[in-house]
């Protein structure tokens, strides 16, 4: 790519344009970093000089120290792993099951019509309200947290995928029918590949939602995990611990989102 650019003699105005683009990009990145640094610096200074009480607001240096301490005694890894495990399992079950239900609802119009109001109600219900019921039914602990996570993701997965399946151009279905495709072939040759972009956006939504699910589940009942650390830290007034767990959570969620966007890039490149 770079070699190609060298070969072509661009006009002056184009060079100026490219320069402006680069400049714009530079300033965007500069301010991103600047805002973060300013925020952290101000936070650190205000707590250092006693304007803010680090007991209530913590401080960047204390958070880092806390993370290091947690990492050294191994609790950070074990708690992170538990939450990550719950999130990934919940994410996987919700995505696969939600997708499968969407396929069934696409397949059978009558079933779809029958279940429509149920899905709408389930979607508008705040899933956290089901917390006590879940604990009663599946028991407190990891399985309850996973169920919570699944409940939060699954309805939106089914609804988004179903609407993607149903939005396929009628003419494309007619084309396959004119070639005497059966319903299986219409599903696998048209409906599923055609809805790949929507599937990737569902994955992206689910990354966020499954973290919400597992942390909410841990708030509800847990003995370990990042959500547990946050609640525990809050109860014993150790704001450093709360902040440290939150930072780790941010990093994990970001990495998972980044992996999905890598998948998206790979997909759009090969499309």
């Amino acid at each position, binding site marked *: 790519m770079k070699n190609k650019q060298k070969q072509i003699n661009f006009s002056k105005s184009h060079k100026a344009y490219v320069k402006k683009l680069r400049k714009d990009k530079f300033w965007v990145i500069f301010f991103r970093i600047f805002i973060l640094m300013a925020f952290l610096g101000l936070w650190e200074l205000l707590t250092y000089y006693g304007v803010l009480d680090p007991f209530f607001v913590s401080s960047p240096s204390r958070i880092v120290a806390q993370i290091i301490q947690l990492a050294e005694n191994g609790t950070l890894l074990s708690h992170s792993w538990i939450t990550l495990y719950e999130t990934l399992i919940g994410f996987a079950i919700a995505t696969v099951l939600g997708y499968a239900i969407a396929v069934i609802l696409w397949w059978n119009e009558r079933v779809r019509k029958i279940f429509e109001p149920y899905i709408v109600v389930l979607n508008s219900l705040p899933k956290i309200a089901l917390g006590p019921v879940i604990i009663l039914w599946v028991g407190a602990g990891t399985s309850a947290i996973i169920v919570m996570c699944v409940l939060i993701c699954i309805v939106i997965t089914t609804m988004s995928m179903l609407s993607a399946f149903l939005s396929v151009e009628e003419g494309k279905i*007619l084309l396959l029918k004119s070639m005497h495709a059966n319903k299986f072939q219409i599903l696998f040759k048209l409906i599923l590949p055609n809805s790949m972009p929507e599937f990737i956006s569902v994955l992206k939504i689910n990354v966020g939602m499954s973290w919400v699910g597992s942390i909410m589940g841990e708030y509800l009942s847990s003995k370990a995990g990042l959500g547990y650390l946050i609640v525990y830290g809050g109860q014993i007034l150790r704001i450093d611990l709360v902040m440290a767990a939150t930072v780790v959570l941010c990093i994990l969620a970001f990495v998972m989102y980044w992996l999905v966007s890598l998948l998206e890039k790979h997909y759009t490149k090969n499309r």
Partner: protein
Amino acid sequence: MENLLTYENVSYFYQTKNDEIFALNNVNFDVEKESFVSLVGPSGCGKTTILSLTAGLLKASSGKIILDGEDRIDTNKIGYMFQKDYLFEWRTVWKNITLGIEIQKPKNKEEKLAFAEELLKKYDLYGFKNKKPRALSGGMRQRVALIRTLALEPKLLLLDEPFSALDFQTRLSVCDDVYEIIKSEKKTAILVTHDISEAISMSDKIIVLSARPATVKDTIKLNLQGETPLKKREDPTFASLFDNIWRQLSNEKQAKTN
């Protein structure tokens, strides 16, 4: 020449929630082998219904449709080409063209694939074999769509306004391309169109339909001079034919509003 398709007193009703709609009323016409027939009529008169009936996607309420000497529709003999190209963006040109073969899994699959490849070569698309459809121009996409239809070797091609989504310049040249391909493959074709000049320039016969419920108002046999549709537009009788059909259609429109 013998007939490939004959409509004998075909009527068709379809149901909506509030009404039963009388779409076709005793339609009679025939299509000779290797001829090009156009259906013109006021919009909403049931032209597409005729194509759907012919393709076996709908069943006539009464009357007979005789295809290739048989009183039933053998859908293997029909190739359907739509208004839009409906190419699948995630498949390469080759995968799009062989879609029908992939679906029908015919016994002579190898032969069919070889034939499809030959068509690609013949109509200058071989270089795009492994490209995705978005790399093609509108006219090329429509050519790919035609080859996808031809790859199944249908006896009768149904063209449902296949050029209406193209801009005027492309439309004229694609029209020539498609005409040439259909003639050189010795196919029979039925074209549904709103464009009277397109119908005149391409057809051996034009069937003028009335407003709904559609019945055949007029059948016009054509014999214009010229190798291609574009050349045929220069024929001296072109203008009077256009005038004739246009008058019939606008009478229908008036009758409808009165």
